[in-house]
């Protein structure tokens, strides 16, 4: 094909103007209760659309409004402004209050992910009951990550997009106090200084592999 025909073809599929693309993203995000990724948006838009630009425009447009465009991991969602939460009492979802064990376990997974069950137990100094992890998995705040490439290939746990969405986080890098905790060395994996570990359950060597996920 010659260049001329190519150009003609391209113009046939010219993307809609930016304002129109913004409208499209607005409609799709409004219609969805779940966050949508850029790819998901573009898959439904006409050929040649750039959702990234439309999303940026949209985020600006909704600044300070009653609803906002927020980023959740790799996806985007419209959510009500947090200061107006009190108006939505009718919409409030009664969630079972999480036990202290569950909230601590969740925090450990979020800040230390990917983390094995043994590592969670090492940090909390107590064994993790099956129900605790089940509850977090059921809430879809936590999922199984990759297996560790250490002996026994233990399974790891990581937090999910649901978790980010629920707590209004763009990514795990935005976890409150993450920087300070890291600076204080409290997110390091520091194996016990000897083999005389208490409880006898933990395997010190296993921790060596636990490099911070957040380093990237």
């Amino acid at each position, binding site marked *: 094909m010659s260049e001329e025909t190519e150009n003609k073809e391209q113009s046939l599929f010219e993307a809609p103007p930016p304002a129109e693309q913004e409208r499209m993203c607005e409609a799709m995000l409004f219609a*969805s209760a779940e966050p949508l990724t850029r790819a998901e948006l573009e898959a439904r838009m006409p050929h040649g659309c750039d959702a990234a630009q439309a999303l940026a425009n949209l985020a600006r447009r909704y600044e300070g409004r009653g609803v906002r465009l927020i980023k959740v991991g790799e996806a985007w969602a419209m959510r009500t402004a947090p200061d107006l939460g009190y108006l939505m009492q009718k919409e409030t979802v009664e969630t079972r209050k999480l036990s202290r064990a569950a909230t601590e376990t969740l925090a450990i997974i979020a800040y230390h992910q990917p983390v094995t069950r043994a590592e969670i137990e090492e940090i909390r*100094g107590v064994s993790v009951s099956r129900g605790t992890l089940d509850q977090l998995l059921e809430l879809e705040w936590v999922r199984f990550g990759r297996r560790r490439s250490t002996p026994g290939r233990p399974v790891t746990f990581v937090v999910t997009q649901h978790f980010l969405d629920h707590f209004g986080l763009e990514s795990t890098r935005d976890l409150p106090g993450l920087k300070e905790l890291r600076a204080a060395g*409290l997110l390091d994996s520091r194996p016990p200084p000897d083999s005389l570990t208490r409880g006898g359950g933990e395997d010190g060597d296993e921790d060596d592999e636990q490099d911070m996920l957040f380093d990237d």
Partner: protein
Amino acid sequence: MGVAMVTDRFDETAAGEGAFDSVADRMAAESLIVDVDGFEGPLDLLLTLGRTQKVDLRQISVLQLARQYLAFVEKAKALRIELAADYLVMAAWLAFLKSRLLLPPDPTDEGPSGEELAAHLAFQLERLQAMREAAARLMARDRLGRDVFARGIPEDVMRVKRVIHTATLLDLMHAYARIRTRDEFRPYVMDRDWVVTLDEALDRMRGLIGFSGTWTDISSYLPEGMGSDPARRRSATASTFAAALELVKEGRAELRQSEHFAPVQLRRKGAADA
């Protein structure tokens, strides 16, 4: 000498706050013992005990903490409260740690020093405390379904399936070749539409023979319309003749031929000679 050292060091700490410690330890142990079940394991208990020191966790006296913990365990024993095994394991470990901290380092011992062990315990406590605070901050965030809300009337995305049919030029060639050469590779079959079978002839003659009292040329028994198609006529003649023989065999008809190549004649058996 070792004993002297212990006394020395114990005196060092005891001089300032030793007496207070023991009272505080006892009081702490008594107030906590009621709530053993409320603790999430020995580390949690240690953290709670550590808070009574009213210092930053980084400056915590692990030695004092060990004493507090051991006092707690003693108290529990005195009150005949059964502690879970891991509390007792921790007690044993802390007793070991205490001795390490109080005794001068043994040059033959290759294990970690008491200070190293104490530092790690302090780290563990600080880390647990940090995670506990992080959890609280996390739970206090604006949360979806409580402070922040998603779309109340989400619109479902309809799934539409579209089927596109395609063909290649080669498909087209194959198809055309198939049509145009169909006869060439037509496998051999017996084409039977011009055949009159023996059964057909027999059926026909059984119906006719009853009326045949006189000698009749066998060719008159052929089905109608045989004249135009020689192949069909041949087939009909053959099967009619065979059927005639079959009728003779059954004793229902008679056959005769006056000479070679003369017409074959047929009549009902038992008919009177003309």
